[in-house]
């Protein structure tokens, strides 16, 4: 083969500070999202004496997920699946309407990288100072600045990894345990792993994560179309570019402001690129320059590529709502909303008591000595309330059937402790002369009733007779 390299070294990027509308928006989003992440585990929510008082808690040991007033049991995991589907569809919707707005503003990789660059700028100075430092010798000053920066990064990384584990157990208790070294090793290992990834991804890998590790840039290429509003350069207005004294026809004075502020190290003037996360910082940078040289803003702007012919012809672009309200985005919104409505419906109709009935089919029926036919059902009774409840079991059927509970001595009341599921074996018997005994199958419905709270639930099942 040739002497061509198979691997390319990472090009260092030193994004310059920028001010403007989108930068302010990004600061706001950063404060908001980081605030949610760090503070959520500390919100308290009173659920009564037997249940945890943490507003958002993923309790792996007891297999419960708490979200404010909502409690999700493992068998209700479809709520989480539904939310994930909604999140996926939401990404499709936003990408087809606004391009990679997720990548540019809210992706954790972007938010933490932004935070790490902010720290870097505070300690080492802006772009030019950082470039000088990068090229300079490793003297005392460079070591001091680098070590300070790494130390602050590490603190942020530890706080990030540390915040994660608080979602899985009572946060105040865990914090005390973490500090006096009595927490579970898994907590320390999780913090260590997430600290390492935060430190590496935010401090060193940055744009490499987006370009080489993340699948979303590839997927989003399929989600965008010419009507998608995205960050682009009005090439027809900017070209031919040239310095002011060169007196070129275009508005672009080739000041490289858009390139210098780019956290991905690309030149937006080259057109749409896979690397571009549409963070819009080049818009702020360019608008600033356009103001200074007395040209209209928007040489780099959020535009739809389908507007290019009209703009080239000197006509105004189509109104923005026409770009956002398209069959595609409307369909995405409709599917997204219908799943949301279905989940809300499921959430509000679910009961505090539940039963699942699994008929024992090994054997399908038991012949009793007097010729009666008995079916056995394993009934799981679920009490989601915070206190012990007495459940009354009964059955309804068109045929004559008798019900009996294993180990209850003829009683049909069962005490189910707070926040628990218990297994109760239930016998349903048809006497020899009853039609159900000699027929094939008979429909029946098992009921569970919380007598005190006056709520009940039921599940239908079948009774197997001898004639099968």
């Amino acid at each position, binding site marked *: 083969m040739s002497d061509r390299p198979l691997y*390319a070294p990472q090009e260092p990027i030193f994004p310059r500070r920028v001010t403007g509308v989108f930068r302010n928006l990004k600061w706001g989003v950063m404060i908001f999202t980081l605030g949610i992440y760090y503070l959520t585990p500390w919100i308290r929510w009173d659920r009564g004496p037997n249940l945890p008082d943490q507003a958002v808690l993923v309790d792996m040991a007891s297999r419960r997920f708490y979200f404010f007033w909502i409690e999700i049991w493992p068998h209700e995991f479809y709520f989480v699946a539904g939310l994930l589907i909604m999140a996926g569809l939401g990404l499709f919707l936003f990408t087809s309407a606004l391009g990679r707005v997720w990548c540019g503003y809210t992706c954790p990789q972007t938010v933490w990288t932004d935070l790490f660059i902010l720290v870097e700028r505070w300690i080492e100075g802006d772009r030019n100072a950082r470039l000088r430092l990068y090229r300079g010798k490793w003297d005392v000053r460079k070591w001091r600045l680098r070590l300070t920066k790494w130390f602050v990064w590490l603190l942020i990384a530890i706080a990030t990894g540390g915040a994660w584990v608080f979602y899985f157990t009572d946060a105040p208790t865990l914090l005390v345990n973490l500090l006096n070294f009595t927490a579970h090793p898994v907590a320390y290992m999780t913090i260590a792993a997430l600290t390492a990834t935060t430190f590496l991804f935010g401090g060193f890998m940055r744009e490499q994560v987006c370009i080489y590790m993340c699948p979303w840039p590839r997927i989003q290429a399929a989600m965008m179309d010419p009507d998608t509003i995205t960050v682009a350069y009005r090439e027809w207005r900017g070209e031919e570019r040239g310095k002011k004294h060169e007196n070129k026809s275009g508005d672009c004075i080739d000041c490289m402001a858009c390139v210098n502020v780019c956290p991905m190290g690309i030149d937006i003037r080259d057109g749409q690129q896979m690397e571009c996360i549409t963070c819009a910082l080049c818009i702020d940078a360019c608008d600033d320059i356009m103001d200074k040289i007395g040209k209209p803003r928007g040489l780099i702007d959020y535009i739809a590529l389908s507007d290019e012919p009209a703009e080239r012809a000197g006509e105004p672009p189509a109104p923005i709502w026409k770009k956002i309200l398209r069959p595609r985005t409307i369909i995405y919104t409709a599917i997204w909303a219908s799943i949301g409505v279905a989940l809300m419906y499921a959430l509000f109709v679910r009961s505090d008591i539940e039963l699942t009935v699994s008929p024992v089919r090994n*054997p399908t029926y038991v012949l009793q*000595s007097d010729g009666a036919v008995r079916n056995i059902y394993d009934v799981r009774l679920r009490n989601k309330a915070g206190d012990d409840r007495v459940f009354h079991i009964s059955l309804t059927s068109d045929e004559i059937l008798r019900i009996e509970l294993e180990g209850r001595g003829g009683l049909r009341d069962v005490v189910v402790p707070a926040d628990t599921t218990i297994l109760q074996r239930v016998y349903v018997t048809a006497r020899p002369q009853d039609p159900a005994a000699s027929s094939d199958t008979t429909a029946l419905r098992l009921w569970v009733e919380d007598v005190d709270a006056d709520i009940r639930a039921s599940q239908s099942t079948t009774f197997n007779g001898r004639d099968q």
Partner: protein
Amino acid sequence: MSERKIDDETGVETTGHSWDGIEELNNPLPRWWLWTLYACIVWAIAYTIAYPAWPMISGATKGMLGYSTRAEVAADIVAHEAKNEALVAELIAADLTALPPSSDLHRYAVARGGSVFRAQCSQCHGSGAAGAVGYPNLLDNDWLWGGDIENISATIRHGVRNDTDLDARYSEMPAYGDLFVEKEIEAVVEYVVSLSSTEFDAGLVQAGSELFLDNCAACHGDEGLGDQFLGAPNLVDAIWLYGGDRDTLTETVTNARFGVMPAWGQRLSDVDVRAVSVYVHALGGGE
């Protein structure tokens, strides 16, 4: 090939490969990717030294750390047994007749007994305990040797008609093929059929009834209700261990039956016998 070619359209270097005039751009991977690969290789080698990895003729290399999944499982089992120690002691000391059905101890006994049953008993009695021809159904309310917890426990502990335990349940039905002529067997069978059916030959039943009272009633009772002290089945009810049709009954009367069950007290620990007794008792037929 060593001459560098630059693609005009993109300004990116090409690999020099060309298919139908389409050239492949050279977009090399980042350097850290390469280092990640090297790190993985080093990790893999270190891993195979530290942990069991390389297959040998018999077994595999043990690894420097001496880790073994088998030892881990053994330690897990010991840990679980230590956790259950209190419940086990309680179960050994418990009076099984007075075990409250919703207590933790009862739940533990049923769970433990269920796993013992599936491992040791299901081969004959079936995984659902429904039995088979010659192997009693444990779900119904018909018991050969008694269905209360003490009788169930004694049957499991000492077994039935085995020659390893002197306290085993024992009874033996004679093979009437040696004692009766064919006509007499036919009459007795017809009488037994008449006990639980409405379709029978009244003439034969009359003769069979006398033979039954003289020969069978000693164990099965004058009315054929059986005797749990002798393990003599109830012949009046709807449940048949080997079958209630005339052919099967003829075979049973002619050759007799001799069902055997091992003495599980000699094979299982005391706590397992107790646990499986509670499990069987709670299957539906327990008295």
